[in-house]
């Protein structure tokens, strides 16, 4: 028996039976004004919540849109008309919504959506515990945390943890209307109540992945990954790390009855069974970063590891090389000037190092000088193998 709870979304009161049959103990309910993809009115949401409660399912209200100040003020007008007692907790992402709930509804439990933003370290997750205090009942963590990290966080946190186990992976969220303009349609016709979002599929020659689902609705434009996340083949590992809640997202036209098969994995898990569910699932899937996340390994290689000044003996950079004649150096350091008799070290951009003693210093007007200082351009006799952008150091 795997102890991880399965939770899911509910959009129609008729679906309660499937949830009951699947043994699901918690359902997420989204209204069109508060939830990115919700399409229920306040009263529909409340009715579903009450129906859920009556069969022992915890109804949780989803408020996951991000809001500029004006949108926030419009949103709370509808929010204030909701009977919050119909719900056992509220799922929030915008820190503004969090603050609003903490300050105005301190008796309500919060499930904090930390799937995006800077929540890839334990301290960042713990802060929400501090801010929301006892009101925080759950941290919904990022799919980018691999299993080992997840295990550590579950151990260290005082709140329960949730992860998306099956469903679309949101890649991009903007409040701007990006698709409707292409149809020359008046936005209002399609987006006012989230009932008829526009959905297209996007493919680019510049990306090997084809067919990104894109949805535009009243809250903006959303792009999803071409592959959905599917972690059910690792449900045993998920149970072993102690994850308390796994979210199954069968919105966007999927058959909710798949839930029953998924739920049966809890009591009778086998990889084969999970794989057969995967085969039945109509969208190509992957396991995301569940086993390993190397997404910051590659970009380290992108870094420009040019030779940079790295010690207090730095003098300046080579700005001109005239073969067999001279090298021009602009003196950039305030601490160190250059004088005849000094020894210098030159680090070329391709990693070579040369040392030489200064026997002559000339200005751009060809005057011999004994020393030069910050801001001046100075010329020394040519040294082979030195190129422009070479860093010059005093060799002490």
């Amino acid at each position, binding site marked *: 028996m795997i102890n991880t709870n399965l939770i899911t979304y509910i959009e129609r009161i008729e679906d309660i039976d499937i949830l009951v049959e699947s043994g699901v103990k918690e359902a997420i309910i989204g209204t069109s004004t508060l939830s990115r993809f919700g399409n229920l009115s306040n009263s529909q949401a409340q009715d579903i919540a009450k129906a859920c409660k009556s069969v022992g399912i915890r109804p949780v209200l989803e408020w996951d849109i991000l809001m500029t100040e004006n949108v926030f003020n419009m949103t709370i007008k509808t929010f204030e008309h909701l009977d919050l007692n119909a719900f056992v907790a509220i799922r929030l992402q915008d820190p*503004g919504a969090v603050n609003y709930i903490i300050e105005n509804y301190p008796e309500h439990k919060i499930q904090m959506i930390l799937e995006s933003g*800077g929540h890839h370290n334990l301290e960042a997750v713990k802060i929400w515990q501090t801010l929301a205090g006892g009101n925080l009942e759950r941290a919904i963590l990022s799919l980018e945390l691999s299993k080992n*990290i997840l295990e550590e966080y579950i151990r260290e946190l005082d709140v329960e943890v949730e992860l998306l186990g099956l469903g679309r992976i949101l890649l991009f969220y903007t409040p701007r*209307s990006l698709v409707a303009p292409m149809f020359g349609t008046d936005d209002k016709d399609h987006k006012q109540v989230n009932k*008829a979002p526009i959905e*297209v599929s996007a493919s680019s020659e510049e990306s090997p992945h084809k067919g990104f689902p894109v949805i535009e609705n009243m809250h903006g434009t959303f792009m999803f990954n071409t592959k959905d996340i599917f972690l059910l083949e690792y449900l045993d590992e998920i149970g072993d790390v102690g994850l308390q809640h796994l979210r199954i997202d069968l919105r966007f036209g999927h058959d909710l009855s798949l839930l029953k098969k998924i739920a049966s994995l809890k009591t009778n898990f086998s990889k084969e069974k999970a794989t057969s569910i995967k085969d039945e699932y109509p969208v190509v899937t992957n396991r995301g970063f569940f086993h390993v996340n190397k997404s910051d390994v590659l970009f380290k290689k992108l870094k420009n590891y040019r030779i940079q000044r790295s010690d207090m003996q730095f003098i300046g950079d080579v700005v001109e090389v005239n073969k067999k004649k001279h090298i021009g150096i602009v003196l950039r350091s305030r601490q160190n000037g250059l004088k005849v008799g000094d020894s210098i070290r030159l680090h070329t951009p391709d990693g070579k190092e040369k040392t030489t003693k200064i026997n002559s210093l000339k200005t751009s007007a060809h005057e011999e000088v004994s020393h030069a200082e910050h801001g001046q351009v100075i010329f020394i006799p040519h040294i082979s193998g030195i190129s422009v952008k070479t860093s010059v150091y005093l060799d002490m």
Partner: protein
Amino acid sequence: MSHWVPELLAPAGSLEKLKVAILYGANAVYLGGQKFGLRSAAENFTLEELEEGVQFAHERNAQVYVVLNSFFHDKDFDTLGEFIAKLEEFKVDAVIVSDPGVIKYITENSNVEVHLSTQASCLNVQSAKLWKKLGVTRVVLGREVSVAEAAKIKKEAGLEVEMFIHGSMCMAYSGNCVISNFTQGRDSNRGGCAHSCRFEYKLEGVDPNSGTEFSKNSFFMSSKDLEGIRVLPEFINGEIDSLKVEGRMKSHLYAGTISKVYSEALSYYKEHGDFLSDELKTWENELTKVSHRAYTNASLVEPAKADSIYDEREHEEIEYAAVGAILEVVNTDKNKYLLVEVRSAFNLQEDLELIPFRGRAVEFKMDSIKNVMDEDIERTRPGSLVKIPYVEGAKQWNLLRRRVEQ
């Protein structure tokens, strides 16, 4: 009488760009160290460069903010303390942070002021209040926030607010795009953004109007660049504390020109209390001379509309290119010339412009070019020094530019 104006905050992708931005009028600069920033390919500052940059800025009454806006992994904290101690020692004016864990660490372990990065997408009063509880003193608001909303946030949350006024824009809510993470294995919130929003996409689906199949190629996720010079009165009325220019990866010419234009406009206001200057057109014109996509004021006045989409293949409109920087101004009885570090080749008899730190660009014809051995040459080469005739008013670090033939 002097009128209040906001701080002008410019990008400093390198020590030299820091100097250029400040000399051309920026009141503050932001820069990245070798770690913890999002611009992984920018020429980030070594500690020595950072120290010198802070000294240079402070001597000119300018502020320096250090960007630590990458989303941290647990292991990154191992070296954070050491870095913050250095920043404190150098007296940087603030750090810009997006990660709540880092905010907590810095506020608990140092006296460095913390500004909330736009990556945290702070969009409303309540959100600003929450970040204030964590000890941030300024919020860099999301680009979706209008100036009027920002003014309200400042007033009601009691925090300093900073807004973007110019530059490239993420189309997504900042910090809410992971396209690169899942499609290219590069964490966009740790410096690996592959700019997938700038790609051309073929969109297929059903036309909601006609119900028929639909297919169209479009750069539908690409945003035009932000330009807010016409919105300056609103920024001032709203008492927005700081106006930020995007672009640490951009050129010296960009850093210099944008700093110059906005600082001249703000100085004009400071003196006159309005923007009814004959120069307004010139300022706008100057902004078109640096590389940019088509401009929009995005959501500064009202939420960005369809005309803010840059539905074209990614290209920058470049009217002018930097050809060099003046390293020395020699003006003695015996010698009179400008020593120029050549960045892009130019020819004898070409028309160039010198961009002074203040005032209009000075046009001149290149009627003599000498190499440093005083030999006449006809064409310069990048990465060399040349002597050109003295131009009245020229100063060390002034930039030279040339019109690019389109």
